């Protein structure tokens, strides 16, 4: 049976959604070990176990060091003893850091931007390119564990009901200079309503809104529908909304039941982040806008007319 190692990202005892997504796939592929940096391994052992991990390898508390160098060194050492078949990471800030460092430590390449893993003749990663119009399948040919970076929302997070994972401490080798970056302060940007990448309904606005103040219509509509507000990069770069709103290749991947795109053209880098939505509604004044090619309902019209009317029609 294959040995699959999964990067478990947690924060204060809470397991990230992408970790649960990876576990759901990993347990189909073989025996699952989670690896982890932080002080909360005992707290998350039950949840990781329920999602399919039999064991957690943890560095323990890193004293505010960034996890990349420490976790990569510890995992590289452990992997040289146990030779896992594949090492999976989510495409997240932390995941990329650890995967990059690990790749060098093990002199093993990384296959990135994966949305599916196929167990055919060695694990094969599926990567969408050109805004999701083309799929490239890649597989490792060398003698090392394949390192895969998987995009969020590629798999469905679902508990399978296993026992709590056992916790095993990994030794962290001396990091030298690489371990010197330290977090001195953490800031959380509060927002109400559901999280963008977990909401069942997402309402996103783009440059077609004309000016920053008009984004309020997007917030209002998202609020009324019990959803989250999102944005194209154009208006994030313009400073209308924070980066945390961005949907797309360099932002969040969302897969809500309904995605409403208002004044968004549908650049490939935007579509890659929302194409997986169950249904898509687009409002754009340009009938040729690419977003219409994937919309279930397309309204060729002016957001300044359609959105106020819609807000009024929905009422409170």
């Amino acid at each position, binding site marked *: 049976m294959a040995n699959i190692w999964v990067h478990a990202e947690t924060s204060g005892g809470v397991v990230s959604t992408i970790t649960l997504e990876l576990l759901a796939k990993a347990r189909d592929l073989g025996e699952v070990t989670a690896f982890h940096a932080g002080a909360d391994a005992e707290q998350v052992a039950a949840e990781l176990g329920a999602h399919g991990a039999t064991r957690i390898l943890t560095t323990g508390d890193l004293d505010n060091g960034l996890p990349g160098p420490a976790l990569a060194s510890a995992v590289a050492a452990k992997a040289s003893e146990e030779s896992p078949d594949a090492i999976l990471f989510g495409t997240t800030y932390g995941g990329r850091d650890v995967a990059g460092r690990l790749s060098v430590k093990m002199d*093993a390449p990384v296959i990135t931007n994966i949305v599916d893993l196929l167990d055919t003749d060695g694990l094969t990663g599926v990567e969408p390119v050109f805004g999701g119009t083309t799929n490239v399948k890649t597989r490792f040919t060398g003698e090392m564990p394949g390192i895969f970076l998987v995009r969020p929302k590629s798999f469905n997070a679902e508990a399978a009901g296993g026992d709590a994972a056992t916790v095993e401490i990994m030794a962290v080798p001396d990091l030298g200079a690489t371990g010197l970056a330290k977090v001195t302060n953490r800031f959380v*940007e509060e927002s109400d309503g559901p999280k963008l990448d977990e909401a069942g309904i997402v309402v996103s606005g783009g440059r077609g809104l004309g000016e920053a103040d008009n984004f309020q219509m997007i917030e209002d509509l998202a609020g009324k529908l019990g959803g989250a507000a999102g944005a194209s990069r154009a208006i994030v770069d313009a400073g209308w909304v924070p980066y945390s709103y961005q949907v797309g*290749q360099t932002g969040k991947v969302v897969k809500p039941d309904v995605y409403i795109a208002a004044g968004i053209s549908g650049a490939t880098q935007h579509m890659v982040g929302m194409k997986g939505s169950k249904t898509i509604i687009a409002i754009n004044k340009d009938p040729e806008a690419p977003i219409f090619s994937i919309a279930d309902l397309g309204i060729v019209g002016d957001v300044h007319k359609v959105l106020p009317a819609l807000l009024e029609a929905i009422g409170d």
Partner: protein
Amino acid sequence: MKVAVCVKQIPDPADPGAMNPETKTLKRDVKLILDESDSYGVEMALQLVGEDGEVVLISMVPNNERNGLNNALAMGADSAILVSDDALAGSDALSTAKVLAAAIQRTEPDLVLAATESSDGYTGTVPEQVAELLGLPSVTFAKEVTIDSGNVAVKRQTEDGYDEVDCPLPALVSVTAGVVEPRYPSFKGIMAAKSKPVEELTLADLGIETSTVGWAGGRQEIVSIEPAPEREAGEIIEDEGDGHERIVAFLQEMKVI
């Protein structure tokens, strides 16, 4: 203070080209430009070094192409190292990082800057691999960078806010898009760029074995390139004052309202 900036030269994303199904590589017969993602690193480097520092560009590219590099030199960078070698065809992120790290090592910078991800490859792993190869600490996803007495302080983007991170130099920092406003090259800058030193290197110059990079170094193979299942377009209607009603009906059908 000396800052090395990784700059990738890429085909214009507005005209992304296509995959060649026979060779399984990107068709690249257009003139390359400076990756917009890296224009932020160049701008940040110029701001950080001020008057008496030095900015060195590092780029790996086929055929000594330097159109994009010239743009970054015209913005104000002082010099560049350009690495080209036929054996680099098919290089993945790790191969690229090995080459960039070897080139950076020659310049002994205080700080290395890269973008969090390139526009055409977007693996987002090259910077961290470069840092590990050089034995440097790193802070990725920086949205604000300040240097003070041998330390770099970074506001680092996180899933739900940001962290403040402190790190002694030398270090590597990767910067997110949109954090500074890249300057347009002046006419003077464009003229000056022509005489700035650009060192052209091969793998042999860097002491890198050809078997460790390029297709051979990748140790992976593309099994297939296929069109993804298409998402069908649905109903497109012209708003004649009733567009919102159609949306309401759709939302009701979806049981959202």
